[in-house]
């Protein structure tokens, strides 16, 4: 596999972007990061149980793509899903309360970190089985096409999932039936503790779409402008009825696979180097500075976000556990 070559910062040519949009994207990425930091903290305090997979480092991917979506598009992803939910404008309170297993959580405390949903926001999970969301995302695209609407399905999966057979079963059918699905491979370089180089044959995961006639591109997933631009191209292609599209996002997670991962498979230097040179939030900050936004304004945003997250954390701990009667609800509809 090719190395993630993202070491550059956002350049001057990107300064023609709408300032309001950039600030909005900055806020969203920061909201995700602060949320995840708090989730990690609460996990350490024993307030969150089970598995908890943090999205820190990958924020530009989901926020950049989300900025190119329209109302009614559907999103589906794996168990590393907190960032996607916040990007979909799901309430951080409800997400955090699900992490703490409380009745105000999005799944009434019955799903947990890996299994959350909001039909209202177009977020179809949150799936705990590696790659299971890929055919489901193709199925959501099928529904869009069947209904004749112009919406698309954004289907996220990791580099680890990219080796699962059902991904290719989905590629095949999506291409045959020209389903409006964008397969977003979030290549963060490690499937749990195994690097892409040790698990995946061939040069690039995105190349694998070629066998199915699916257009693909590799994107610097640490550069939110590059992500947004690619998403606009991919979504436009899908919406116009040309079929699926693959975006391989070269990204990086700073934390372990889950909270219980000591991450011995990589060096601290590797993580530090990427944090220093490619951090998506730092990059956009530099751009905003160049465009005349002062540090103080950015700091104010951070303060507001921290306060919002603190509220969410409090809410999530104050919310009661689900009533015992919930044990037997929602098994079937009738």
């Amino acid at each position, binding site marked *: 596999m090719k190395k993630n070559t993202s070491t550059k910062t956002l350049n001057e040519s990107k300064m023609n972007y709408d300032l309001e949009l950039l600030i909005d994207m900055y806020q969203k990425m920061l909201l995700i990061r602060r949320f995840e930091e708090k989730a990690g903290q609460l996990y350490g305090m024993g307030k969150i149980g089970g598995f908890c997979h943090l999205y820190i480092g990958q924020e530009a991917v989901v926020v950049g793509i989300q900025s190119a979506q329209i109302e009614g598009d*559907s999103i*589906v992803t794996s168990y590393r899903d907190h960032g996607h939910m916040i990007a979909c404008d799901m309430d951080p309170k409800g997400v955090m309360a699900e992490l703490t297993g409380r009745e105000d*959580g*999005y*799944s*009434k*405390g*019955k*799903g947990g970190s890996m*299994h*959350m*949903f*909001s*039909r209202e926001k177009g977020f*179809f*999970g*949150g*799936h*705990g*089985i590696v790659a*299971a969301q*890929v*055919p*489901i*995302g*193709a*199925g*959501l*695209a*099928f*529904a*869009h096409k*069947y*209904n004749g609407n112009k919406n698309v*399905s954004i289907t996220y999966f990791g580099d680890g999932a990219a080796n699962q*057979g*059902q991904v*290719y*079963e*989905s590629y*095949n*059918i999506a291409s*045959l*039936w020209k389903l409006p699905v964008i397969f977003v491979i979030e290549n963060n370089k490690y499937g749990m503790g195994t690097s892409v180089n040790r698990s995946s044959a061939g040069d690039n995961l995105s190349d694998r779409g070629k066998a199915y006639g699916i257009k693909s591109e590799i994107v610097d997933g640490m550069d939110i402008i590059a992500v947004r631009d690619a998403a606009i191209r991919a979504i436009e292609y899908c919406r116009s009825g040309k079929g699926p599209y693959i975006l391989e996002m070269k990204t990086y997670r700073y934390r372990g696979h889950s909270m219980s991962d000591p991450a011995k498979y990589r060096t601290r230097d590797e993580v530090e180097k990427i944090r220093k040179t490619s951090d998506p939030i730092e990059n956009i900050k530099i751009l905003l500075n160049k465009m005349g936004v002062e540090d103080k304004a950015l700091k104010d945003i951070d303060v507001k976000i921290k306060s919002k997250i603190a509220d969410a954390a409090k809410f999530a701990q104050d919310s009661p556990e689900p009533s015992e009667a919930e044990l037997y*609800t*929602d*098994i*079937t*509809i*009738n």
Partner: protein
Amino acid sequence: MTIEILMPALSPTMEEGTLAKWLVNEGDSISSGDLIAEIETDKATMEVEAVDDGKIGQLLVPAGTEGVKVNTPIALLIDSTELPHASIKNIADKPYLEKEKIAPELKMVKPITLEPNSSIITVREALRNAMAEEMRSDKNVFVMGEEVAEYQGAYKVTQGLLDEFGDKRVYDTPITEHGFAGIGIGAAFGNLKPIVEFMTFNFAMQAMDQIINSAAKTLYMSGGQMGCPIVFRGPNGAASRVAAQHSQCYASWYAHCPGLKVVSPWSSKDAKGLLKSAIRDPDPVIFLENEVMYGQSFNCPDNEDFLLSIGKANVEKEGSDVTIIAFSIMVGKSLEAAEILHEKGINAEVVNLRSLRPLDLDTIINSVKKTNRVVTCEEGFPFAGIGAEISALINENAFDWLDAPVKRVTGKDVPMPYAANLEKLALPQVDDIVNACGEVCYKD
């Protein structure tokens, strides 16, 4: 030398067929590989090739004859050097058409009396009618699966659907069960109502993760947001002579899991009423059909609103001495057993479960209270099977009403063998039910 051309078996379960058309005439010279006839089975129309060279001496079965048993001689092939009349004379008094070399299980089918507001149709037709009716009334219902569209269904269950509804409602999939099951589930999450056909449930094991982890559990994991209105249907259980990987009953596998509904029809009426209910149901339904039953005919209500409630069993025959609890093909075998038992002075009640999850415990318990003796019947393996569950439930709910321990009749605890004699031994037979009933009634 005269060679008999025999009615060929064109599928594992074919017992008879229609000789639709002769493509040769008496006196024609043919070579190996030439097409000689068209034969219709319940699954397809097939062309038959000659396997020997020679001259057609006589066509023994006229074109258009229905119900020609497999292995019946249908024509005589004579050596082209031989005089036709001589050879025909030699065999003229052989009672060819009476000969039945195969189908040991084939019983004389009792004539069916037409019931009011009903038609006598096959289980296959009932299933197709159910799908077509629901597709007409709800545009969100669509069908996907292997060979369901252009091929008209591997077992002809979806025959005609493509013609009526077009390729936006009927989809041929690649042979990738895991992927297309997941796509169906995604479509259901997107508010469509997919009917996913598995060519057989043996292949659905490839899709098991999607069925259990995605279809069955997501409603719960989403706190009630993510309903999955999908039907997975196809033949389940043993067909005939297709061995271990293609002959298994999955009833207890699916019935084990909360979040799924599991139904298994026996008759045409069951098939129509249950499938229509399954398609309308907001939950994922596993619909276990049986290949051997597809061609069997029963009365079936014509009413397009005819529904059978999922979760309700039906007492097919009232009785007082012993309750036989069965589903799918075993209902028919249980009714046969009940007739034999009647001759032995035992009056058996036959309960057709129809639904395995939810299970109609009330009907079971009421029957136990009436007869005090129970035999369960299923094709599946005994260990942790449906019979084991029913036995446990009876212990918990009606122990004091029992006069004998519950007895299970099941498939044997072995992978299905190929050899005809071993296969018969592995599958539960009518005699096994009769004997089990005799045992619980303490009669030999």
